Structures are given as structure tokens and as C-alpha cells.
């Protein structure tokens, strides 16, 4: 065989292969995504499914705890090299909430996207800014008591539907040598969960326009049911509802207490259910509303849009990022199942993960209040709230003093 033919054929083949690789690389789109690690399992499920359907799109996803997300994404936004897609929180209570981000022109407007019409108008003030949509909020979540059904049965404890029954549950668990509610207040975000579970009943069931009145300067933390909620929180502590030393116990330890069965319940967001389940695959977990009063019909629960995804205005892959959000919006039920959350719009036919069945009637009958910080004017109120609860448990402040400080910070 002549030398030229011997060499020419493999070279031609190699050249064709190289050209096809280059062509393939040119059509490949890489999206960068930075999201909250609380939703990692569910988000990764959506990403994997999307990449399978769209092999030309690669999503480089990074997950980190909320506090780290706030730092890294804000810094990248400020430096002009933000990821294409990143976690955005409803309202104005966090450094990555939609309202301050839109005010700083750091979110791409998405009002023309097909999923916008599916956002319930009740959430407009925390999901939209000036009537325009800037991020995709996939689900809503709720806060309640995650409990071990088998442990309740073994201790013959019924799910409480009144405040007094909550205290009785604490007594029964304590008598059996168990912790009724695991509490890891060392991680400051955990401190807010019990007040958030009680305040819908003690504040919003009584005064549905509390937020508007507070904004207008006609209502305050100090002169509202917040006082009752904090008092009940401390009553739970003195009654022995919690593990010893909640201020020194971390969220991780709280999770392990429930997973190991040492504690029979913990008040948390619904999205934590998969995490506890991952620590004990055999545990039968479910959630019940934490009753804030002794009248079951008067009890409300917190339910609010959870963290969503926005697109950076500096993104060079806007079309691909929008396409991913559209796919995401068409698969929110899958996401909700993976994340143990609820679809944003709950109808009579909405199916939820069995663990959340007890929460559904409250959402259907609109006996719900948004997470309180979503309507607070700045992250500072939340910081005072979180640190103040640690101080309450450490005996360094009182309920009236904390409420006064929260009012001062709110009005600053």
C-alpha cells in the first residue's frame, strides 16, 4: 500500500473526528447554578433529568448553606461575574431576597415567562416587585413539628391539637425518658422556627392585616401576639419540652436526636424531612401543625413560598437559563415530592407527600401566614430576632426587652 494512502485515511478520519468534536463543543451550553444546600437533593434531581433530556446543556451546580450563599453570590453579583442561575429568597428579609436584588438591578425580569401566570396572587407582594416577576418560585413550604409516628404510638401519645396537649406531650415524653422536641438553637436560624410556628395563631389569626398595620406604624411586635408566642416558647423550655442546653446544641445534633429516636419530634421546615429520613431510613416520619392556642379551629400555620431561582442580568446564557426554568416549572410536582414541599398553588386535587397530609387542610382553608421575615424591611430585624432568642434562653434578656429591640430595628 502506498505510503500516502496509508497515512491519508487515518488522518482524514482523525480530522473528521476532531471537527465533529469542535462542532459538538460549540453547541454545548454550560449553565452555572449556585443554590441553597437545603434543596440540594431535590434540585439535583431536576438538574439530572433536564441534562438527560438536553445532552447539549451542562449545568454546573454548586450547593452551599444559606449563609455562605449570601456571601458568595452577593460578592459575585457585585463583581459582575454572578452565576447564570442562583437562589433567590422571597420578600426583603434576607441579603439575597428578591426586593433588594431588584432595587440593585441584579435580577433579570422574567414577567414574559409562561410560569408567571401560575403564581398565586396572594404571594404577589413577596414574589413580585412592582407587579413584575424576577425569579421562579417552585414551591411553598411550611413549618410544623416533624415527629416519629412509631415513637408516638409506643409512648401512646396522640398528636396534639391544642397548646395544653403540646405541654402534656412534653410531660409524657419526659416521663418516658425521651425528649419531646429536639432544639438546636446554637445554629441561630433554628431559633426562629418555633415562634414562626406559633405566631400565625397568636398574631395573624387574630389580626390578618398585622403586617400592613405594622408597616403603617399602627402595630408593633411589643403590643401583639408576638409576646404570647415568645412566652409560650419559654414555657416549653421551663416545662422540659426540649433537650438540655438548646443554646449549645447544633442543628446537626437536633437532626440526630430525632433520627436516633432520642427525641420524638422537632419543629422545623418541611424540607428537613428528607434529611432526617436519610439519617434513619426506617423511621416513619410525618409533620403536624404546632398548635398555638387551645381552640383547634383558631390555630393557623406558617406557609410561604420557598427559595427559588433567578437569572443574573449579566448572564451570557439567558435563553438556556430561561429554558431550564421553564422545564423546572413543568416539573414542580416531582420537585415538591423530592423536597417534601408543597406546590405553590394548592387546589382540592393537589397531592402532597403523605408526611404533610396534616398540613394540607390549613393551606386549603387559607389558615396560613407567610414566614414573618419575608415582610420585614431588612435582614437586621431577623438578626435581632435570632440573637434575641438565644439571649432569652441564656437569661440575658426578657421578652418585653427583645420585642422592644425588634420594634426599634424594624422602624430604623
Amino acid at each position, binding site marked *: 500500500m502506498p505510503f500516502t494512502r496509508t497515512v491519508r485515511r487515518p488522518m482524514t478520519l482523525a480530522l473528521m473526528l476532531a471537527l465533529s468534536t469542535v462542532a459538538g463543543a460549540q453547541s454545548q451550553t454550560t449553565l452555572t447554578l449556585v443554590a441553597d444546600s437545603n434543596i440540594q437533593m431535590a434540585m439535583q434531581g431536576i438538574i439530572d433529568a433536564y441534562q438527560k433530556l438536553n445532552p447539549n446543556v451542562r449545568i454546573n451546580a454548586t450547593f452551599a448553606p444559606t*449563609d455562605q450563599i*449570601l*456571601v458568595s453570590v*452577593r*460578592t459575585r*453579583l*457585585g463583581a459582575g461575574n454572578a452565576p447564570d442561575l442562583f437562589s433567590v429568597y422571597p420578600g426583603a428579609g434576607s*441579603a439575597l431576597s428578591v426586593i*433588594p*436584588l431588584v432595587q*440593585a*438591578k*441584579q435580577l433579570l425580569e422574567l414577567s414574559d415567562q409562561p410560569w408567571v401566570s401560575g403564581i398565586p396572587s396572594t404571594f404577589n407582594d413577596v414574589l413580585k416587585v412592582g407587579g413584575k416577576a424576577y425569579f421562579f418560585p417552585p414551591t411553598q413550604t411550611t413549618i410544623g413539628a416533624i415527629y416519629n409516628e412509631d415513637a408516638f404510638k409506643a409512648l401512646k401519645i396522640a398528636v396534639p391539637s391544642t397548646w395544653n396537649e403540646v405541654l402534656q406531650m412534653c410531660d409524657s415524653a419526659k416521663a418516658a425518658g425521651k425528649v419531646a422536641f429536639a432544639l438546636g*438553637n*446554637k*445554629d*441561630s436560624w433554628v431559633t426562629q422556627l418555633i415562634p414562626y410556628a406559633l405566631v400565625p395563631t397568636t398574631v395573624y389569626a387574630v389580626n390578618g392585616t398585622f403586617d400592613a398595620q405594622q408597616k403603617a406604624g399602627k402595630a408593633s411586635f411589643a403590643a401583639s401576639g408576638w409576646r404570647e408566642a415568645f412566652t409560650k416558647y419559654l414555657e416549653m423550655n421551663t416545662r422540659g419540652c426540649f*433537650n*438540655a*442546653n*438548646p*443554646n*449549645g*446544641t*447544633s442543628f446537626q*445534633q437536633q437532626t440526630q436526636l430525632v433520627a436516633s429516636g432520642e427525641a420524638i419530634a422537632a419543629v422545623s421546615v418541611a424540607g428537613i424531612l428528607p434529611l432526617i429520613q436519610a439519617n434513619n431510613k426506617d423511621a416513619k416520619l410525618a409533620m403536624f401543625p404546632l398548635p398555638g392556642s387551645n381552640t383547634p379551629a383558631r390555630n393557623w400555620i406558617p406557609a410561604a413560598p420557598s427559595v427559588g431561582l433567578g437569572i443574573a442580568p449579566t448572564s451570557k446564557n439567558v435563553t438556556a437559563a430561561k429554558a431550564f426554568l421553564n422545564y423546572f416549572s413543568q416539573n414542580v410536582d416531582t420537585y415538591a415530592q423530592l423536597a417534601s414541599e408543597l406546590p405553590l398553588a394548592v387546589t382540592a386535587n393537589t397531592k402532597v407527600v403523605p408526611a404533610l397530609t396534616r398540613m394540607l387542610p390549613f393551606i386549603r382553608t387559607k389558615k396560613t401566614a407567610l414566614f414573618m421575615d419575608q415582610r420585614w424591611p*431588612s*435582614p*437586621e430585624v431577623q*438578626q435581632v430576632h435570632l*440573637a*434575641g432568642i*438565644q*439571649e432569652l*434562653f*441564656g*437569661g*440575658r*434578656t426578657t421578652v418585653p426587652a427583645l420585642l422592644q429591640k425588634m420594634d426599634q430595628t424594624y422602624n430604623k
Partner: protein
Amino acid sequence: MSRAEVSPPSDAVARAHRARPATGVPVIFIVPALVLYVFVVVYPSISGITYAFTDWNGLTATRGFVGFRNFRELLGDDAARAALGNTFRLALGVMVVQNAAGLLLALGTHARLRSRFVLRTLFFAPAVTSTLIAAFLWQYIYDPSGRQGLNALLGSLGLGTWQQDWLGNPDLALWSVVLVVVWQYAGYSMVIFLAGLQGIPQELYEAADIDGASGARKFWHITWPLLAPALTLNLMLSLVGGLKLFDQVFAMTGGGPGYATETLSTLVYKQAFVFGHYGLGTALAFMLAIIVAAVSLIQLNLLRAREVSE
């Protein structure tokens, strides 16, 4: 060899020697490092200071000049004042205990023990450990449940009443952090003290022995005065390190419970990254830098004066 052969160089030669630096060769050697230092440290620091006089939120391209408003706000802020108090308590605690422990370790491992080299390595090892890893490790040691760590040890020794919520009790949390810093850096102080001890002439101790001096007198009249340079260095490093401390506090307590361990460094972080007040955060960082510089200068002058007098 005649005297002339070893006589000093003539004036012409001396001038030539003095003129040599003018060739510029040494300057060229420092240029790369100087350029790097200017661009990596000096320029960002000076441009950073300008943010302290603005209302920048870290996101917008524009920032408004607000003069000294950020500084006035900080001076009237309860949280900043509390953080300042915590910072000084923490820095002083670290400085005193770390150096006392370091000196004891140095004296112990300076003795002619067979195992002294192994002990020195062991005591120095925490200083080369990542501060974050050390902080996470100590979170387990401080586990309040009594199932593991320090409380479990106290329980097994029959000292159950000594068990504490080390990081959750606002009265204890700051000192628990101090203990971790001391554990980590006492070995570092030990090495500096050891260098000082090894520089003390043995003849002085031999003379003291002949005079019948006790161990305590030898320490007080020989070791302590001659350790003054090492002490100056150790006090400076530990105080400055304590004033700037961030990693251990942030990893172990996040400034809590409440504000019990909030320091100026953690407050800078919160103002800038949690609240989005970059201008205020930079102003606080600038104030911290001035405080560190002022305290260091005062301390250095006092300690240098002591070195001279002794």
C-alpha cells in the same frame, strides 16, 4: 603580614564601596515583591478605605458619599460597643493565658528531658493545624450533651457538677473560645520562648549556682529579664492575633449565643455580607485596623522600654 596590608581602605576605595548601592542592583531585587505588595495589599487597602465613606451595598455600581456618617453610626451603636468590649476581653485573655502557657511549656521542654524534642513537636502541632478544623474539632469536645467530649470526660471522672454548656452559656462562651485559641497557639509561643531561653548564656546560671541562688531566684533575676525580647514578640503577636480573631469565633459560635462572643471581626462580616452594608462594614474594619495599630504601637513602646530598663 604588615600593618599596612590590613589597614582600612583608602578614602577612594571607601567611596567606591559606599557608591555600590547606587548601581541599583539591590533595588531591582526588591521590585517584584514591592510591585506585588503594592497591588495585592497597599492598593486594595487604600481603595477599600474609600468605601468606608460611602453607602455602598455591595451590589450597585454607584455609591453615594456619606462623609463620616458610617463612623458616627458605629460610635452610637450598642452592638459595635459590645463587640469592642468582647474583642478586648478575648484579646487580653488570649494574650495572658497563651503566653503563660507558652512560657511554662518552654521551661518544661527546655529541661534536659529525653522526650523534649517529641514534646516540643506535640505542643507545636496544633499551631500548624487549620484554624477551622481545630474549631470544628472543639465543637465536639464542647458537646453539651455529656455523651462525648469534655463533659463526658468530666462525668467519667465523677465531676458531673462541672459539666457545662460551654458554647451555649453566654457567660462561658467567650472563655471557651479563648481556651481553643490558647490550645492552638500556646505551642507557637513556646517556640519563641525556647529560642529566647536557648540564647541565655549558661555561664550566668553557673555563676548563680556558685552564689547559691535558688531556682526561683535564677528565673526571676536571669531568665525573666533576658527573655524580654521573646516576651515582647509573643505579647505583640498574641494581642494582635486576638484583636483580629475571626475563624474560631465564627466557626464555633457565629458570635452567639446572642451577642456574647460577637467581636469586631464577626461584626464586620455581618454588616458587609449579611446586612449588605458594605460601607458600614468597611468603616468598622478601618476602625479595627486603627485600634490594632494603636494598641500594637503602645504595647511595643512599653515593652521596648522594659527591655532597655532590664
